[in-house]
């Protein structure tokens, strides 16, 4: 598969096939960040869609100063946080937590079977965190990025990111108290 730089260049000249290749390479990453940050699987699909549409329309704004994946993560996280803050999820506020966090009866039933009880508990615990903390721990531990890259994506100093991660882990430990044998 071609390198991101080549694909981005081709996308800039309107090559839709190149854009599809970029999509295939990064869709899981964007979807997982969107899911964890928004706390809503169905909404994560909308966020993923919007992220790629914005990326396609904004290739001229990507100067290559950072990695393409960092730029894309940033769009996804901003989109997820904006979606939450604009109240688009208010309509689902009364939906049970598990219906939002987990695909129990969604279009991918095999996904629900695959999730272990531990994963379910962890996702529930993530969902209870404030959005900025959610974004920080998702990028750091689920995506495995280093603190500097997380800070670049969320647009905050490294110290702030560390503090958010600390608070998030502490809050989660209360919810995960019965999972000491994880």
């Amino acid at each position, binding site marked *: 598969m071609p390198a991101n730089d080549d694909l981005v260049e081709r996308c800039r000249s309107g090559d*839709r096939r190149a854009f*599809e290749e970029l*999509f*295939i390479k990064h*869709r*899981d*990453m*964007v*979807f*997982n960040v969107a*899911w964890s940050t928004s706390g809503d699987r169905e909404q994560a*699909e909308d966020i*993923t*869609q919007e992220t*790629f*549409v914005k990326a*396609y*329309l904004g290739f001229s704004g990507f100067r290559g100063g950072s990695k393409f994946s960092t730029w894309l993560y940033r769009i996804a996280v901003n989109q997820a946080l904006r979606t939450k803050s604009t109240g688009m999820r208010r309509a689902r506020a009364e939906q049970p937590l598990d219906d939002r966090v987990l695909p129990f009866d969604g*279009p*991918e039933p095999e*996904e629900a079977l*695959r999730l*272990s009880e*531990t*994963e379910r*508990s*962890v*996702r529930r*615990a*993530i969902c209870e965190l404030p959005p900025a903390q959610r974004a920080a*721990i998702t990028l*750091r*531990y*689920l995506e495995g990025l280093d*603190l500097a890259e997380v800070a670049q994506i969320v647009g905050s100093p490294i110290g702030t990111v*560390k503090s958010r*991660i*600390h608070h*998030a*882990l*502490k809050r*989660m*430990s*209360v919810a*995960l108290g019965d*999972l*000491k044998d*994880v």
Partner: protein
Amino acid sequence: MFECRRTRRRLIDYLDDSPPDARRVERHIESCPACRDELESLRLSRKALLSVRRSAAPERIWARVDSRLRAMEAESSPVWRLLSGRPTYAFAAGLVLFLVGACSLLIGPAGQAPPVVLMLISPLSPVGISVQGCM
């Protein structure tokens, strides 16, 4: 107390990267049950998070992205912009279409004027007479 605050600020680094002053953090933790508990709770959550596997994005998302982009491209085409971008252009385009349609109806399919037109333009027709009469 100062040492507790200092240690807690370093716990994330300690968990993730083993910073240069790791030995100092360890010494404090050995002697401070509160900081030890704090470290254990962070470690528990971190371990749980690392056990979460990534999910595959549903295949249908590409179709939605592609369809959005096609729709946006169609909307940005010159014809669409002419018809929908500015109301005055849309009105002008509609007027031109109306006049072209009206002319083709008046002239007729084989270049011959239909009876209605003949009646209107003939000086001997009742309409022509009545028009002249009015004048």
